[in-house]
């Protein structure tokens, strides 16, 4: 298990966090390569289904990041998202996922350094938890 590396699905908002990831790259900031980025139009677009599907298919962690409150490209998308996330995070941890597998953050397009810092933090937390055990589907039922 010593060479085990976590797989983390990162859902990044097109207008802020995705740009921040871009900036981190342009600035040659270093962070471990454990995150797989999926671009979403806004954190308001996030559905709990995405998170559950990621865990179900074996992701060790999920990280959702978007614009700071008040800076949403769609004005209020992240305000709604915030309420959704706090209820969802509570529920999924209540149902038995370890705290520390699911992460949320606000990172603006200018915060490339912060993106790298948070990425390092997220990856470390998930790595410390070890491979995901719960919420992984054993039966493979790929849709034809």
């Amino acid at each position: 298990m010593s060479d085990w590396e976590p797989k983390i699905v990162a859902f990044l908002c097109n207008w802020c966090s995705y740009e921040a990831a871009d900036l981190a790259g342009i600035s040659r900031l270093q962070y471990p390569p454990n995150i797989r980025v999926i671009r979403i139009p806004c954190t308001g677009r996030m559905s709990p289904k995405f998170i559950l599907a990621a865990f179900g298919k074996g992701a060790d962690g999920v990280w959702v990041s978007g614009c700071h409150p008040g800076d949403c490209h769609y004005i209020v998308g992240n305000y709604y998202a915030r309420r959704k996330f706090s209820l969802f995070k509570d529920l999924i941890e209540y149902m038995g996922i370890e705290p520390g597998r699911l992460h949320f953050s606000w990172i603006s397009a200018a915060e490339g350094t912060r993106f790298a810092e948070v990425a390092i933090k997220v990856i470390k937390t998930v790595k410390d938890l070890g491979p995901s055990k719960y919420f992984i589907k054993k039966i493979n039922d790929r849709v034809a």
Partner: protein
Amino acid sequence: MLGYLTKIWTISERLLKESKVDMVIGFRKGTVPMMNEPCVVKSPENVKELVWDSNCGINLANYLTDRKEKIAVIAKGCDSRNIVTHIIENKIKRDQLFVIGVPCKGMIDRHKISSMFEKEIIEVIEEENKIIVRGNDCEKIFKKAEVLQENCAICIHRNPVIYDELVAEPVKEQTDIDRYKDVRRIEEMQVEEKNNFFDETLSACIRCYACRNACPLCYCPTCFVDESRPQWLGKSIDPVDIKTFHLLRAFHCAGRCTDCGACQRACPMGINVRIFTKKLEKDCFELYGWEAGMSLDERPPLDTYRPDDPEDFIK
């Protein structure tokens, strides 16, 4: 509570005779004990079909979704709150409805009673605060409080929230009730323990979706369980699929659930499915001070926001 019936008949008959409504939605006696079924009465001659006792646990708001007629509906405290939710969500208009409010003293738990009998139950007779249950060659008498549905025992909104006419004086609301004892017990568990607990709770689930169908909140044209492209939720018997179904079903009811207990009542396997919705109910109350279906003027918690909502969990 038994005395309500004549008043229900009088009101229904009057409304139908005066053509104030096209139909009255209420309960009639079911074909098996403790299972009253919903019924639609359309002519004044038939109002005597309606019954009212402690087996009317089904949530009648479920039958109002997208109706165009003028409807009188018999509503307990929880039904009335779901009617409010329906009006807020534009599933029916207030002026289409005549709400016959029933101050409720709780419904009896059919799972609990049948689990105490080995043989089939033939008859259940209700007297004031006393339930007489007859099986093939046995009889048991219970106090009503002993066999109340769990959600009724911890109910704090027994009287209808909206109504056009009440069938009786409002009953006294219960106070000093600890509504979330079981939720807190699970919250305190360790991760491993939680997983074992829920795996065991859900091991009986056969994915019949009765909980979804009984729920007045579940009216999506295509339910997430039926979506196939993409198929977010597998149809297999994998425990994770079952857990995911219950998680998402509960999440869809977040900030809308009134804890009417219809889902649990409908479950053929007797699974405590309310344990999921109650967690969200607790969170909505603690985070946003929200109780579902209490007012027509407030938006539900996931349809609104405050700039200063709690966000300690966000980095």
